[in-house]
């Protein structure tokens, strides 16, 4: 039995404070470090942390209990096995893997083996949807897990094999490249070009390219940057949103690993444009295996003079980037929630206005952009706005990366120009017989085959790049149920429509499963989902009913009056 000495904890926390600083924003890094050390964060550690940071224990507990990767109740096993329960992994046979894991270990999900070796947890989207079922063992990712493989993995854990300095990253499958991914650049060309211009000219170049936010909302990047640039505050921040939590999205994982320098270029260009001197990469904890790699990349840039003081010889332009880890919360992909989380708070969305461009991280102007947006910005400054705007439609310029998974022959990462129709996409990926396509992940829309001529663009189907294909035999009600469970788990629970509404929707789905839902009640539920869209506080709540509404509209015939035969609830 491990004895936790208070004095030792206090000393350790003091050391951590020296590394991460003694302000509130160091709370998450400290909690991470303590959890790594003690395999959970018991009350006495929470108390000591509160004492050291001079905040109330209620607030520390509030933070620790918000994030799914922090464990405050019982000690986790030496190996924490987290199985992805997202819809795509579900379709690829997650249930069989889950059952076998329980058989092998003799515990249920949420439990820890008696010998303290293994803990079994479900988690949401590991960003490996094209290679599912996916599983995370501590920081190591496993793709294409089968029931048979689970036994081997567990055996190897017993032999302590997971001891490598740089955890191996499962390679992404890149299927189709376009101008973004084919662009050849030499050493920070875009950044050097940008530094040759005035900040206002950099923003003007971005404006000409009509680059819009690649996270899905499509806010014009130049406008965001300009608002932050115009603010007179001396301290400003640049944040790269690498909290790629949307089910079915895995392109940022690829970009962070394969286009690291371009993304860091993009962030530095952003910093130059708005006048920031500090940047953060908010990396989701599920991608922790990338942390060391990214830190090495940052260190290399510091040595090259591309980060730090007087960047690339430009006097007075100082900028550095820190990596901050999330702790398992989908809602932190929302920019204000992300900022709250960076500040060491619960990742709960803020009321807007004020917007982050004037009141962001610690009340300072902050731009939060998607990984792909920074890539776009770096390439625009390398190749010019003209080059970027060659592809796409009138309102959606350029190309976009799509993460394609589900029932198709060639899942993976594709680059398409905006304006590509779903039909064209399906031919390319070998999924012509699909009956539905989910555009934009759990928060997106489910498009049935009659609408396959709709186009992927900001004016029609805007998304962060998640495309999940459902084959002719998929049970759409189970798909809706999976998404609904996802939102119930990931909602922060702040506002009424999202917190209670999603539960009511799942109750409705249970009725539908039993074949006991009247069409008038279904209508009420669709109205409820409409109210959630109109009145929820943040993007998560507003979009949480989308999938339900569109599935109920597109597949009414299939869903109404049907009773579930099997009790397993498998989608497969």
């Amino acid at each position, binding site marked *: 039995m491990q004895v936790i000495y208070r004095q030792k904890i206090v000393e350790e926390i003091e050391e951590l404070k020296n590394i991460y600083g003694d302000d509130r924003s160091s709370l998450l890094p400290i909690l991470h470090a303590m959890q790594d050390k003690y395999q959970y964060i018991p*009350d006495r550690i*929470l*108390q000591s942390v509160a004492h050291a940071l001079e905040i*109330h*224990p*209620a*607030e*520390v*507990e*509030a933070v620790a*209990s*918000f994030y799914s990767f922090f464990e405050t109740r019982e000690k986790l096993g030496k190996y924490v096995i987290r199985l992805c329960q997202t819809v795509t992994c579900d379709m690829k046979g997650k249930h069989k893997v889950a059952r076998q894991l329980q058989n092998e270990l003799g515990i249920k999900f949420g439990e820890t083996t008696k010998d303290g070796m293994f803990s079994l947890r479900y988690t949401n989207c590991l960003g490996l949807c094209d290679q599912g079922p996916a599983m995370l063992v501590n920081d190591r990712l496993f793709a294409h897990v089968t029931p048979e493989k689970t036994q081997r993995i567990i055996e190897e854990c017993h032999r302590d094999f997971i001891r490598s300095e740089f955890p191996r990253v499962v390679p992404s499958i890149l299927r189709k490249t376009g101008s973004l991914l084919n662009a050849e650049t030499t050493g920070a060309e875009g950044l050097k070009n940008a530094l040759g211009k005035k900040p206002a000219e950099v923003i003007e170049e971005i404006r000409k390219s009509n680059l819009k936010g690649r996270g899905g909302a499509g806010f014009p990047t130049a406008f965001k940057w300009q608002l932050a640039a115009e603010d007179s505050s001396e301290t400003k921040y640049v944040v790269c949103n690498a909290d790629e939590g949307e089910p079915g999205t895995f392109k940022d994982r690829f970009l962070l690993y394969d286009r690291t320098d371009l993304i860091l270029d993009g962030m530095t260009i952003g910093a130059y444009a708005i006048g920031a001197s500090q940047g953060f990469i908010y990396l989701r904890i599920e991608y922790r295996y990338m942390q060391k790699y990214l830190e090495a990349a940052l260190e290399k840039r510091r040595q090259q003079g591309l980060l730090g003081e007087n960047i690339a010889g430009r006097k007075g332009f100082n900028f550095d980037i820190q990596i901050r880890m999330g702790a398992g*919360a989908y*809602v932190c992909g929302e920019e204000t929630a992300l900022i709250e989380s960076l500040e060491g708070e*619960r990742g709960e969305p803020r*009321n807007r*206005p004020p917007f982050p461009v004037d009141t962001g991280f610690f009340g300072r102007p902050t731009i939060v952009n998607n990984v792909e947006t920074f890539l776009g910005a770096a390439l625009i400054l390398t190749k010019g706005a003209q080059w970027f705007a060659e592809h796409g439609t009138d309102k959606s310029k350029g190309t976009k990366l799509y993460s394609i998974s589900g029932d198709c022959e060639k899942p993976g990462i594709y680059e398409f120009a905006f304006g590509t129709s779903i039909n064209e996409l399906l031919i390319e990926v070998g999924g012509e017989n699909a009956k539905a396509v989910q555009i934009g992940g759990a928060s997106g829309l489910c498009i049935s085959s009659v609408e396959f001529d709709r186009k992927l663009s900001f004016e029609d189907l805007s998304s962060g790049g998640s495309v999940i294909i459902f084959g002719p035999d998929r049970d759409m009600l189970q798909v809706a149920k999976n998404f609904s469970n996802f939102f*119930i*788990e*990931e*909602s*922060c*629970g*702040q*506002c*009424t*429509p999202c*917190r*209670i*509404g999603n*539960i*009511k929707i799942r*109750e409705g789905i249970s009725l539908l499963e039993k074949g006991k839902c009247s069409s008038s*009640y279904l209508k*009420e539920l669709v*109205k*409820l989902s409409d*109210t959630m869209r*109109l*009145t*929820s*506080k943040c993007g998560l709540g507003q979009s949480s009913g989308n999938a339900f509404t569109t599935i109920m509209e597109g597949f009414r015939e299939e869903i109404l009056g049907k009773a579930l035969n099997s009790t397993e609830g498998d989608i497969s």
Partner: protein
Amino acid sequence: MIKLKINGLNVSVEKGTTILEAAQSVGFPIPTLCHMEGLTPYGACRLCVVEIGTGDRTKLVTSCTYPAEEGLVVRTASERVLKARRMIVELLLASCPQSKTIQDIASKLHVTQQRFRQEHEDCILCGLCVRMCKEQMMAGAIGFRGRGQNRSIGTPFDIKSEVCRLCGGCIYVCPACQLRCTFTEPDKAICGGCLNLSPPCVDKDQFHDMMCYMDPCVACEIKED
């Protein structure tokens, strides 16, 4: 001064005024639940939504948090707003039907029946008590825990907080722990009968009818003395 239009009426207010304050200053009622003067606006219950903008570009925002902007067009009781408020109050009723505060709001919105499966939670997570404790009582003895459906309010580690002075401020502001309604037939119906009844527990003699989870309850202790 900022000039805006509320329900067709020109209103000028000082900078920093919220839409809610502006609307109330000219007498347009907007229902609120998680809002209280003296506490930071929270914008969580979403009952105070109003419609802003014109033409096709209107949207619903919470009036308690949205600052008055020059030239803003606000409608506090459009069809869309009322529909949304009714749905939200039904959701609140479905989780906490015994609260007189929520029932009164429902009655005023002419909600007579809620459509969803009824539960009997004792908290609607409006966060009034948390803010009261932190901002007015300067204690911070209670806070939120968990998220989503596991979100709850309590003292750290579920033991009595050393900074709690048993001031009772949390109960005073709580919209859920008042007179428990005895319910009417048929099930799920809202009678509106207690609309004109005056609430707080401090004034009442019948303590066994109270729903209260503060242990010990300061109001009750004072009364017993």
